[in-house]
Structures are given as structure tokens and as C-alpha cells.
């Protein structure tokens, strides 16, 4: 079955006999961006390095435009990788670092230098060309690493937490510009991040990983609407999750919430978390008693954090002004309570 773009099929990777990645499968269409979300140590970096060919795979396949990459050496795959630790060449200047991939492609020096200058402008480091990389700050070296990976215009580029050292405005600007470039050039991208908001801005689809396994995969919009389990929800930055008390009532298993008893969906699992989205809770004249804790601002949106029944807190999206300590009443439909299994089987 012909398919274009990147396809990873049942990829497993062992390092020193320990299983790091287990049966990873996903596809990315050419020119699209996949965000990979996962906690630290889940194997994201290993996955990227395997795709690049730096780490041997134990089983499975990696294909580009239906052709397996496994027999190609690293330097022939045309896959760019921006390292989490930047790994700039310490003995070369900024310009020489960025130019490296172009030199490998035997692009003439003058042309390459022009490209380097453009990239330096792009990442906001104009004038840094002859600087030694030893003198750069963390944010500056991250941008150089980014520019270096972009320079040779690879067919697939993989960015490992590329913006984590940058401030918000710089981050926003870079996301816009870089992804603009990637789109116009039709470069496929994998973007590893732990910031779900960032992921939502850039990605067409998202891959959620935990412990070397894929937990969820699909269009961002779909995955966020129906998270498969509580971990996915946490990775996606969804609020609010709390651990419910399980009850057995009238022969049925369910959770007991201040808004009522809700039955557990089949099949029954061993542990659950409950998700209540801020926009589903209403402040009203009657409902469950809650005490306002404080106002939090998420992406410029105000949420009110309240303590419910002295046991758990929820975030409420509301226009009203509330002060800490104020007593309010919260209304919620039982149908809006989402019960999520803690871990998928």
C-alpha cells in the first residue's frame, strides 16, 4: 500500500537489553507536523534518534515514501535532528556551525553564507555570525542549534524541545515563522515538547507517549475531545482531573461526586481519574458549595480555582469576578463528568 511521508511500523528498540520503545506505530503525511507529548524518560529522544538512524532498532520498520530507511546510514537519510543538548561544535563559530550541513551538501560557499545569514535573521541572532559558540547563552545556543538543523532543508526534521529555553514572545514568534517556512517548503516535522499549548499551535496530529509506549495518536482536535485515559489528559494539559472515590451502589459501580453518582463505563478498570473541563462548570445560585481559592490565568484566560467540599479543587471558566475566600455555588451536569481510566491496558 503506497503511502507518502513518514511511516513508523511496530518499532521496538532495546538499549543494553532493556526495552526502551515498544511497538511504536504512527504515520505523518508529507509536509505535516506531528507533536510528540510525553513525560520525561518516556523514550521520546530515543525515538527520534532511532528514526535518524543513530540507535539501532530491534524490530519494526521505518519508511519514507514507502521505502524502508533501515539500510541507509545516518548521513544519507536526509533527516535533520535538533538535539536537546544543542551539541554545537565547540571549535566552530556560529556561522560555521550553521553552515555545516550545507557544506556536506557541497553547496558553494557564497550561496551557503547567504542562507546562513537569512537563518540568523530568522532566529533573531543577526550579527552573531563570527561569535564563538562557547560564549553563547542557553537561549542563544538553542537558536543556533535550530538554525543549523534547518539549514540543509531536510525532508524530515525532528526538533527535540526546541523552544524550552526561550521566553514566551520569542517562542511565539519563532513558532510562527519557522512553521511558516516548514509549510512553504513542504518539510515534514516531528516536534517533541512537553508544552501541550505549543503542541496545539503547531501540530496537525499528536502522539502521546508514556513509558516507551504509544498511549494515543491522532488529530489534535480529536484526541483532545476524547482523551483515551487520564495520562493522555494530563499530557494534553487538560484540567481539572481529580481522583474519585469509588462506590458500589445498587449493584452498580460508580463514582460519587458532589453532583451525584455516575456509573463507571464498561469494562471496569482498577483505577480512575475524573475530568471536569472548566468551561462545563457554571457558577450559579444553587449547586454545590465551593470556596474560591484564587484566580489563575492560562493563556490570558481567567480561570477561578475553587475548593469543593473541602476535598478537591476545580477550575471554573467564568466572567464573574470572585475573591479568594468567597463562597460560591457550582453547577455541573453529570453528563459533563468524564470518567477516565488511569492507565490504558
Amino acid at each position, binding site marked *: 500500500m503506497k503511502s507518502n511521508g513518514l511511516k513508523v511500523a511496530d518499532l521496538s528498540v532495546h538499549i543494553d537489553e532493556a526495552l526502551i520503545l515498544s511497538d511504536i506505530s504512527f504515520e505523518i503525511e508529507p509536509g505535516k507536523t506531528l507533536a510528540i507529548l510525553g513525560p520525561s524518560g518516556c523514550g521520546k529522544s530515543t525515538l527520534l534518534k532511532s528514526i535518524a538512524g543513530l540507535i539501532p532498532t530491534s524490530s519494526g520498520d521505518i519508511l519514507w515514501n514507502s521505502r524502508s530507511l533501515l539500510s541507509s546510514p545516518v*548521513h544519507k537519510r536526509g533527516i535533520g535532528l535538533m538535539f536537546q543538548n544543542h551539541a554545537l561544535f*565547540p571549535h566552530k563559530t556560529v556561522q560555521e556551525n550553521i553552515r555545516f550541513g550545507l557544506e556536506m551538501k557541497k553547496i558553494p560557499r557564497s550561496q551557503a553564507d547567504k542562507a546562513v545569514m537569512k537563518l540568523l535573521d530568522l532566529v533573531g541572532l543577526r550579527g552573531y555570525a563570527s561569535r564563538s559558540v562557547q560564549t553563547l547563552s542557553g537561549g542563544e545556543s538553542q537558536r543556533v542549534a535550530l538554525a543549523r538543523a534547518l539549514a540543509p532543508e531536510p525532508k524530515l526534521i525532528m526538533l527535540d524541545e526546541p523552544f524550552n529555553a526561550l521566553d514566551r514572545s520569542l517562542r511565539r514568534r519563532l513558532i510562527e515563522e519557522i512553521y511558516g517556512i516548514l509549510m512553504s517548503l513542504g518539510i515534514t516535522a516531528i516536534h517533541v515538547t512537553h508544552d501541550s499549548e505549543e503542541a496545539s499551535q503547531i501540530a496537525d496530529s499528536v502522539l502521546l507517549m508514556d513509558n516507551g509506549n504509544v498511549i494515543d495518536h491522532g488529530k489534535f482536535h480529536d484526541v483532545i475531545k476524547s482523551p483515551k485515559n487520564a495520562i493522555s489528559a494530563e499530557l494534553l494539559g487538560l484540567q481539572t482531573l481529580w481522583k474519585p472515590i469509588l462506590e458500589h451502589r445498587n449493584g452498580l459501580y460508580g463514582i460519587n461526586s458532589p453532583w451525584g453518582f455516575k456509573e463507571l463505563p464498561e469494562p471496569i478498570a482498577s483505577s480512575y481519574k475524573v475530568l471536569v473541563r472548566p468551561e462545563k462548570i457554571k457558577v450559579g445560585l444553587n449547586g454545590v458549595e465551593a470556596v474560591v481559592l484564587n484566580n489563575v490565568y492560562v493563556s490570558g484566560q481567567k480561570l477561578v480555582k475553587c475548593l469543593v467540599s473541602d476535598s478537591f479543587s476545580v477550575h471554573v471558566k467564568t466572567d464573574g469576578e470572585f475573591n479568594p475566600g468567597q463562597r460560591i455555588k457550582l453547577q455541573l451536569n453529570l453528563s459533563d463528568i468524564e470518567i477516565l481510566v488511569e492507565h490504558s491496558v
Partner: protein
Amino acid sequence: MDITAKKVSTLTTILTVLIIGTFYGVFYFFPVGNLLKYGTEFTTIKEVFSSSSTWKVIWFTTWQALLSTFISLLIGIWIANVFTKFQFRGKQFLKALSIIPFVMPTVVVATAFISVNEFLRLDGTMFTLQGSTFGIIIAHVFFNTAIVVRTVGSIWPLIDPESEMAARTLGSSTSSTFLRVTLPQLKASIFASGSLAFLFTFSSFGVILLLGGLEKATLETEIWRYATQRTDFKTAAVLGIIQLTIIIVMLALNSRSRRQGAAAPKSGGSSTQPSCANTHFLKFRLGTCVVFIAGFLGLPFALLVERSLSTNNGYSFLYYKQIFLESSERFSVFGTRQAILNSLLWATFAMIIATILGLLAAILLTHKSQKLSRSSDVILLMPLGTSGVLLGFGIIVGLDTSILDVRSEWWIVPVAQAIIGVGFVSRIVSTAIRNQNPELKQVAQTLGAAPAKVWWHVDMPIISRSLIAGSIFAFAIAIGEFGATAFLARPQRPTIPTAIFNLLGRPGAATFGQAMALSVILALITATAVSVLDRTGSVVGNEI
């Protein structure tokens, strides 16, 4: 790694083992073995071991070497620290100064030390440098400081200063930080330079003979005495076996300790930059060190210069003129001008051999296979600790088969010097290789660099600084004609050390003055060559 890369790697390893193995086999193991076989007779062995002087000699040789090494490490680390942390005028000059002791013929060093002795009026006191163990140790430290400073000094800049800062914020004092954070990262280079220093001092010959006063005997001087003055090869060989055994044990121990608990600082992260001494305290720190270097290393040299300039008519450049102009017949026999040329050529040749082979040998030292790297650790450095007498004699006796009669070819001399140089280069280079950040190679590959290009663009520049440091030593050893050279039968061409030797062997104010002048010239040539190499190293390796 894919299949072709693995194949290339294995092929490289096989080739390297063959080249190094043949070189060492032919020019070291075979000759030395030829001599040591005289020591396998049981009666001689019994005689040697039952004599109490043998044990005294073994004991003295070992403890003076350990003490010399220890003090060299202390002083060397101190100086390396200052060189790493501070930028100051004259840094390059001082760096070059530190290597000069290495090239000086021992006789000249002895002369210089005796001058110091007089100058500081130490004669007769507890601190006399002449005829005392103290003198021996100080002379050894004098030689070995350079090794420690350059080896440790090439790794120290790679330490991430933030690791030290983090420790301080966690409540660790300056000294505690140094011991617990900095030192472990330097451990490998300390062990590397320490082993080199130990080998030198253990098999030290000229220093013991000239400065040690005559009661002090080491294994090396005894081997010399029995082999060359008594023509008793059996006893000499038994002593040689003892010497070699101790060396092998020490190298093996060194190899093991080096691997434990060492945290090599990786290149590619942030590094320690030298800065100007701003505060009074820092100025004080810097100042004391500079004064010490200038004094300790510079004083003997300065006195040497003084002697070369002092004629019976006051100070002048008379002797220098005589060397270069050879105006009168009476000096033409020393061939001083030709000597300078010959020395430079031969030393360069030896350095090139040592560098190329040392680089290959470093591959063995840093190989994944433990067996290979551990045995290389020991084998590659054995020549440094082996008696020059035995090696020289061994070459004369051994390399005389009809296929291989090379013992009096001119190139056997640079080869004999290169054998020692290989040990240096490989040890220093392997330390740098171990400090490499593996991600740099990986990144280069993802940017489209094939394995050869990776090596050229990433590996080489980073280890080039260490490679040059090693080459410098190989050059210095060669130009100073260290080791087995004296005991080979070599074509008589004037070189600087032999010219100095001949000048000092004839009575006369002029011959003595010229010998001093020639020593100064030797020092200056070496310093210049070293500065040139240093500069090349910094351009290529982007030295800080």
C-alpha cells in the same frame, strides 16, 4: 551503526593493531627480550636477590619516583589551575618555559642546578641541591611539571564552571568544591600525567648520577653500571627484569584506578574561560604562581644564560659568535652550526613518526574492547620505563639478522626516540578522545557527514590540541636525545646535545662558555618550536 561503518571500524582496528604491533615488536620487544634473556640464569637471579644492596636499590628507586611524581602532580595541578583560570601577559612565554627542562642535556641541568645552589647559598644546608636526595627530587619535579601542566591543562578548560558554581550554592566551600567536583573530572588526566612522570623518574639516569651524589643508586644506574662498566649482562638483565616488572605492575594498577570513579568532562558543553585577574585576591593568586614558575623554572635557566654571557672580559655574546661563525680553526671540529641543523631535522622526523603512530595507538587505547584498551594501556608505555641501556644494547644485539640489519642505520635513532614519543602522544590523545561528547558525532551525521567527514570535522579539531601537546613532548624528547639514543651505535653527525657534550669534555674557558651558549640556544629553539606548535594547536583546536 550500519554494516559498512562497522566493517570500516573493524578494519581500522586490525590495521592499527598490526602496525603498532609490528613497530613495537621489532623495535622494542625483540631487542629488549634479547637482552633480558641473559637474566634467566638461576644462579645470577639468586645472587642478585640475596644481596641486600639490591633491595635497598629497589626501595630507593621506588620511593624517590613516587615522591617526585606526587610533588610534580601537586605543583603541576596548581600551575594548570592558574593557566586555565587566568589570562595574563606572558602566559605563552611561561608555557613555553615549562617545557625547556625537558630538552636540556642532564649535564647542563646539573650545571644549572649547581649554579642555583651557589646562587641561593644552599650548599651545606639541608636544602642543598647537590649530592642529595632533595636535589634529585627537585630536579625530577623540574622535569615533570611540564607533563602535568600540559596534560591536565588541556582538560581543565573543558570542565563546566556551572558544576562548580552549583556545588558552591549547595554549601560547599572552595576547597571542598575543588576536591569533590573539580578533581574527579580531572582524575583521568591526573592519572595519565602521573603515570608518565612516574615512568620518567623511575628510570631516571642522568639526574641520579649527576645530582644524586654517589651513594644514591637506582635500578637504572645499576643496570648501567653492570652492563657497561662491568660487562656483566646477567646481573644487568636480572635488574632489568625487576625494573620492567615493577613498571608493568604500576601501569596495570594505574589503568585500573583510572577507570574507577572518573567522570570525564565532555567537550561541547560550556567551558571554563580564562579571565583577567580583577580583584586583589585573584591578583595575589596569579602573582604567587607566576613568581613561582619564573623562579623555579626560570632561575636555573637564567643562571645558565648568565654563564653563557660571562667571559673573562665581562659580559658579551662572544661565545654565541663563536658558535655561529666558527671563526677560528680550533672550534671547527665541534661542528656547532651543522649540529643545530641536524638536531632540528632529526627531532622533527622523530616527532612525525611519534605523532602518526601515537594517533593510531590512541585508537587502541580508547577502544570499546576492554581487553584491547587495557593491554594497550600497559604495553604502549613500557618503553618509557625500560632501561635505555638495555633497549640500546638490545637493538645492537637483536637487530642484526641478515634480513634486518638496521642497527647502525641513521634512522634507527629517530625510531628509538619515536618509540618513547608514541607512549606520550597516545596517552595524552586518548585522554582527549575519552572526553569527547558523542552527540557531536551524531549531530554531524544527521547533517549529512559520512564517517570520514565526521572524523575530519568533529574528532580531529577537538583532539588536535592534545595531539599537538603530545607532539611537543615527542619533539622535546627527540631533540634532547633522551633514552636509548646514547647506547646505540649511530652515525657520527653533530647534534646539539653531542656538541655540548664534546665542548664540555674539553678543558678551556671558551669551550665551557660555548657549551653554555649552545644550551641556551637549544632552549630557545625548543621554546620557539613549542610556541609555533602551540599556536597551530590553538588555531586548529580553537584554544581558549
